[in-house]
């Protein structure tokens, strides 16, 4: 824990507001691999091309849980196109910058999102 997480990261990790599942979600996406230490699943409720609700389930470290929570907050209210533009860097910035060795956790969030939106398009 001494890799200097920001206060925002620790707060999000300790009290994630967006953890959970959405029943009958319009889009579900997954990224990661348990052997690497992180698996992230995002659930989206989409109405008229706008993300109304976003939730996550994450197996992972402090940075992975905080990134998942941050991502969900960023997603709510965004159009699908706007959501696609979110980068790992954006998430990390919102979290007050993840330690460099943990940057990939925020990228994982965008990968799960991309997976969700790709699945959404197919339907």
């Amino acid at each position, binding site marked *: 824990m001494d890799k200097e997480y920001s206060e925002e990261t620790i707060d999000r990790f300790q009290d994630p507001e967006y953890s959970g599942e959405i029943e009958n979600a319009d889009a579900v996406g997954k990224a990661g691999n348990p052997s690497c*230490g992180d698996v*992230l699943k995002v659930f989206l409720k989409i109405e008229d091309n706008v993300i109304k609700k976003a939730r996550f*389930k994450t*197996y992972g470290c402090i*940075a992975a849980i905080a990134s998942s929570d941050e991502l969900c907050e960023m997603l709510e209210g965004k159009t699908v196109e706007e959501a696609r533009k979110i980068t790992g860097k954006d998430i990390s910035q919102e979290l007050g910058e993840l330690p460099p060795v943990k940057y990939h956790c925020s990228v994982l969030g965008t990968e799960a999102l991309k997976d969700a939106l790709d699945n959404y398009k197919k339907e």
Partner: protein
Amino acid sequence: MSELEVYLDNGSTTKTDSEAFEKMKPYFTEKYGNPASLHKEGKEAKKAINKSKRIIADTLNADKKEIIFTSGGTESDNLALKGIAFENKEKGKHIITTKIEHDAVLKSAKWLEEQGFKITYLDVDEEGFVDQEQLKREITDETILVSIIHGNNEIGTIQNLKELSEITHEHSKNAYFHTDACQSYTKTNLDVKEQNLDLASINSHKIHGPKGVGALYIKKGTEIHPWQHGGGHEKGMRSGTLNTHGVVGFAEAAKNNYENKEKNIEKMTSLRDKLIEEILKIEKTKLNGPKGSKRLPNNINICFNNIEGEALSGYLNRKGIYASTGSACSSLDLEPSHVLTAIGLTKQEANSCLRITLSKYNTKEEINYVLKELPDVVKRLRDMSPL
């Protein structure tokens, strides 16, 4: 924040005994002479060093002249491996160690490999015990050193040093036997004569002494090259002005914890076994390392399926419970613990482990608090997990 603060990371470092702290104090502002100086101030410091050396030697059943003070376990291990390797390379360039060593040994061995030495890393079984048959097969007269950790820092396995050093000395005429005893010192039997050890690394801050000081036992007659050069302190074996206050604190802690060894072991063992028994009642948990007397009395290492170790210790931290993890996410190189993978855990399992290390200062009340909070934290993280 939380009702209680419970420090359960004594495998990382311990609280300094107040008796040790008190003994150290005069050596900062009153008896601050350099033990290498010939004047009265120096003599006084030198006397304190000698007395400390005798105390430490007694706890190991060694002779005072066989103790070299260092800056800690890492330096002791580096001196043992590199010092033996370079002094004895004409006899052979083969060194045997294990896959579950502390990085101080493992990375010294890797470095020696780059310098042209051949290193064999012995396998261990699922409880972490060294494969003795493999040692017999691999050792030859080319082997100059066998280095095996005594009590494992992660999973608590205590190796049978007597048998391992016997095999070493029987099967190679040139091999010295070294053990890293930093975790086991004063927590289980360590006797250089009975166990027939040539070198043993110990340190102070794991046994309630100050940080920054340790020792290497070097059996009389052992051919070893110094690793730190300079003014010729410690009979040329380890140059550098001695850390008098540190050495004095180390010796006091060693004496205190050696004299109360049986009592401390009994207390820690009973808390350890209660924790193990109760935690294993949580579903999908598994103990790493052996049970009973072949496990360090203060070590608990448990795998919680579907939970990542850093997140687990992060939530426990919030409850005032301070433990550590072997997960990849908690390490700087993002690799899971080499010890956990050596005993056969998958990477995912290794990422899901929590290490709790007790000290003589832990109480029943603290352990009950941990047992009250832990199941909720585990449930919360499992609810959050997509696995």
